[in-house]
């Protein structure tokens, strides 16, 4: 029972830096004084972005995964960190989104030098760094128990962000979020216990070699994926998401919607394509896709019915997450030699990336609009265009990606999913993708329509928004649009390190 050994690669120590750097920032905030939280975060954020880019460059140059074996102890006893093409892509995405959120949050979470320190800025910056550490661990971890700890870290950082302003509804939303997340993690842990009992290792590469297609493995993977579904807010386990993401401050909502819900999905991808004995269960794949379809249709309609801008965006998050789950039957039915060379898989991953950029931009834009107008009722958004035109433009550009209109990352992603669905004769999935696009167009245009209307007579601007904040939001939306110019084919980069796992 000796799974293949990992060999540490040259730049492997950078992976540790990527995880430890945010933790150092957190500790520095406590050690150097809470007043300096923001300044410390502004040192750590670009530093982390550089580390993520360096790892990405390393992976691109060598064309192989970057690996680090902690303490030189080989799995199954030790723990390995490994960055393949997919995890590096998500790490860079995380760093970019967090840096942008950091810039926009400057207005809402600063501590002026002449005032006493407030709690919410300190908590915000500390938790953002905690989230980052957890996300990087999720993307790099190669051990199922290690991933469990990372998921818990993520939950504990995300839940307080939801109730940062301490209003009663947000406390309730946070509690509900926490309870859903806890059910999810216990189910995940139970699956991990079963897998350990059956194979004696929780290392991903080891499990990949050992996994048999038997009842224990299926039950274990089923439990883990069900638990992760609750954390990733797949219909019908999405009930916690809209109040939690809508109640959080806009900067926090952006991180929660863009990144936090993607981490459990990433682990589902790992379990499904890296651990589960192939060929995977076709019925389970179909079921995930059906739940995805239900998410898309049900939550798009719910988004259309919301009176509040942030609730609408939160429901749209659940709908867009549904698209991710369409990739399982599509990748299985494709005749590509490996899943990650199939159009469906690539479309799903591209949807993940483009949604992260578009949704972060949309939530931040909604936050700026609400700050300028003093409310976020969709009915009374008229005049927004005259006060915060750049934010409204960013909202519209991000909306392109959600609708799947060209040119945008969402367009390419949905086109790839649609192509895969028609190629593999999954007509229901194709129909759902098209319906989802139409519904998304309806809810985005409903907002734009109001925002571009002439202001009413008693219109008053509550606050002026500095230009750099609006430009940052626009920058994120433009990133989501630029993704639309990638070639319509599976990318070699995403497959790096996935062929012939160690």
């Amino acid at each position, binding site marked *: 029972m000796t799974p293949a050994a990992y060999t540490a690669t040259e730049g492997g120590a950078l992976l540790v830096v990527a995880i430890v750097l945010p933790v150092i920032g957190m500790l520095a905030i406590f050690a150097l004084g809470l007043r300096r939280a923001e300044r410390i975060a502004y040192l750590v954020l670009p530093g982390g972005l550089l580390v993520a880019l360096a790892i990405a460059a390393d992976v691109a140059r060598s064309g192989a995964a970057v690996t680090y074996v902690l303490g030189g102890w080989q799995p199954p006893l030790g723990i390995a960190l490994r960055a393949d093409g997919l995890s590096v892509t998500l790490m860079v995405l995380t760093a970019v989104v967090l840096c942008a959120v950091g810039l926009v949050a400057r207005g809402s979470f600063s501590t002026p030098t002449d005032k006493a320190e407030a709690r919410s800025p300190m908590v915000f910056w500390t938790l953002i760094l905690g989230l980052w550490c957890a996300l990087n661990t999720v993307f790099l971890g190669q051990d199922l128990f290690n991933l*469990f700890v990372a998921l818990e870290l993520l939950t504990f950082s995300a839940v307080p962000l939801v109730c940062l302003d301490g209003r009663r*509804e947000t*406390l*309730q939303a946070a509690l*509900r979020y926490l309870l859903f997340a806890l*059910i999810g993690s216990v189910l995940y842990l139970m699956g991990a216990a079963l897998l*350990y009992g059956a194979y004696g290792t929780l290392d991903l590469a080891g499990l990949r070699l050992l996994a048999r297609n038997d009842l224990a493995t299926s039950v274990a993977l089923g439990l883990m994926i069900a638990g992760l579904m609750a954390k990733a807010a797949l219909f019908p386990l999405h009930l916690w998401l809209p*109040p939690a993401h809508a109640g*959080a401050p806009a900067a926090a909502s952006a991180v929660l919607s863009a990144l936090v819900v993607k981490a459990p999905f990433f682990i589902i991808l790992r379990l499904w394509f890296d651990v589960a004995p192939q060929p995977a269960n076709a019925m389970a794949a179909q079921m995930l896709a059906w739940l995805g379809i239900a998410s898309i249709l049900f939550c798009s309609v719910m988004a259309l019915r919301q009176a509040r801008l942030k609730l609408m965006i939160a429901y749209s998050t659940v709908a867009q997450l549904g698209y991710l789950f369409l990739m399982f039957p599509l990748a299985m039915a494709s005749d590509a030699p490996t899943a990650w060379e199939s159009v469906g898989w690539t479309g799903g991953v591209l949807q993940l990336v483009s949604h992260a950029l578009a949704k972060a931009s949309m939530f931040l834009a909604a936050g700026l609009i609400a700050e300028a107008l003093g409310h976020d009722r969709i009915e009374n958004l008229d005049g927004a265009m005259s006060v915060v035109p750049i934010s409204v433009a960013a909202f519209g550009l991000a909306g392109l990606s959600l609708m799947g209109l060209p040119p945008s990352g969402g367009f390419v992603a949905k086109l790839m999913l649609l192509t895969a669905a028609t190629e593999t004769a999954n007509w229901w999935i194709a129909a759902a993708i098209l319906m989802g696009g139409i519904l998304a167009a309806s809810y985005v245009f409903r907002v734009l329509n109001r925002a571009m209307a002439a202001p009413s007579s008693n219109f008053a601007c509550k606050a002026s928004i500095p230009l750099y904040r609006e430009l940052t939001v626009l920058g994120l939306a433009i990133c989501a649009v630029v993704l639309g110019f990638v070639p319509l084919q599976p990318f070699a980069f995403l497959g790096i390190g996935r062929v012939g796992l160690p």
Partner: protein
Amino acid sequence: MISSTALYGLCAAGLVAIGLYGLVLHPTPLRKVIAFNLLGSGTFIFFGVAARRGAAAGLLADPVPQAMVITGIVVAFAATAVAVALLLRLAESGGSTLDPGAPDPQDDRPS
């Protein structure tokens, strides 16, 4: 004669069943938190069973799952602390702590 491993396994299954029932069906948050702890305990006993079976190397008892259980207990403790802290804040803010569903649509303060 039932083996001790099987007995522990059944115990774990029973705890998980009670915990899941409480977590999903009880309306009061405090009971949900307690149910989560039961559910967690059941899961930890599962790890104990895995350790007893010594799946890794045919040892008398495998130490790795025990290390995992310790980590798991710490995580569950932290989760309970966060949940109770949230509950306390909720109780301080007045009114019932029951989960009422979606936030109040009448409230139009920016969030």
